């Protein structure tokens, strides 16, 4: 991706932030979002995040892999386990990075 394209992407994302955050402030004060639409708007972000994260974690330079050599995957599973247990975001990152480093150095 060229530098110009990266800057275009950044500008586009800034525009998206502005539009999504101000959408109904632009003149929809009488607008009532139906419950079902609201719920759909809530699935979308989580769905988009997993659709990015899961393939990203499973992809290695040699294609999709759940082998133990895919350190990022197993480190993230450690982070996930920590989060399910302790519910702390910083802890999730720290545990994940420690696991990743341990795998990188010793596995």
């Amino acid at each position, binding site marked *: *991706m060229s*530098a110009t394209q990266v*800057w*275009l*992407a*950044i500008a*586009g*994302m*800034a525009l*998206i*932030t*502005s539009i*999504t*955050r*101000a*959408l*109904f*402030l*632009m003149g929809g*004060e009488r607008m009532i*979002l139906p*419950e*079902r639409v*609201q*719920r*759909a*708007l*809530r*699935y*979308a*972000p*989580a*769905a*988009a*995040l*997993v*659709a*990015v*994260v*899961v*393939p*990203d*974690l*499973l992809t290695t330079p040699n294609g999709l892999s759940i082998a133990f050599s895919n350190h*990022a995957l197993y480190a*993230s599973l450690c*982070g*996930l386990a920590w*989060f*399910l247990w302790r*519910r*702390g*975001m*910083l802890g*999730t990152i720290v545990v*994940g*990075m420690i696991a*990743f*480093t341990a795998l*990188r150095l010793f596995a």
Partner: protein
Amino acid sequence: MFDRLSDLNRRAFLDGVKTLSPAVPATFSWGLVTGIAMAKSVLTVPQALGMSLAVYAGSSQLAVLPLFAAKLPLWTILLTAAMVNLRFVIFSAGLAPHFAYLPLHRRLVLGYFNGDIIYLMFQKRNFPTGYQPGKEAFFWGMAAASWSSWQVSSIVGILLASLFPDNWGLELAGTLALIPLIVSAIATRSTLAAVGVASVIALLTLDLPYRLSLPLAVAAALLAGTFADIMAEKMGAGRKTTGAKSPAPRLTETEPLNPPFDIKQPDLDKAATSTKNTGSAR
């Protein structure tokens, strides 16, 4: 606001700053991680700084980093950012009745500086809709505290990142930071269905060109979530049908998962709370 410096507004502004201040440490660590992840990605330092200052949306910034790395086309990146930001549309609907009296450009700027925590805390105050003295100043107090702690931490993260060797794999920290957001968003069975379907479809369609798999996964997730809602409604309809109140998802929604750090969870899970808040705001 011509009387921005009036005593009342100044106090409301400071009240806003104070209200947000418990969330500052969490915002700070989140910004630090995002800054480091951006600087360790394919972005250059000026690009990372530009993204932080212009985009000002942590989870969508983190979400697009793997896409930049995979050299995916511009539209895929923008579409992903838009999807991750969709929850803000709900927030904008919640703020609209409070600030409809402002001129358009002021509403646009105010919307841009809204965020998950700000919205949550603003709604907690249960302001009456329409013009209220000090309400806008209160919002701006929170927005200023949130914006400055985010930008400072993110910029510190970007600049600190160069101290760490690349082979430490710190870009993984960005992905790890998204895990709490995803898990906390799964407060209902329908969301679990949506997220499960999204990950399966994303993997099955991974080889499609241009990562068409992304929009496909989100579309399938919306269908799956809505389908799960309808099923739950049907099963719940046997008891008592109170009409528009939609009792269905509440079956599992009684106890939304604990936010990662009590009030301060910066992102997605607030969307769950916002539904009730927008409801009460009307």
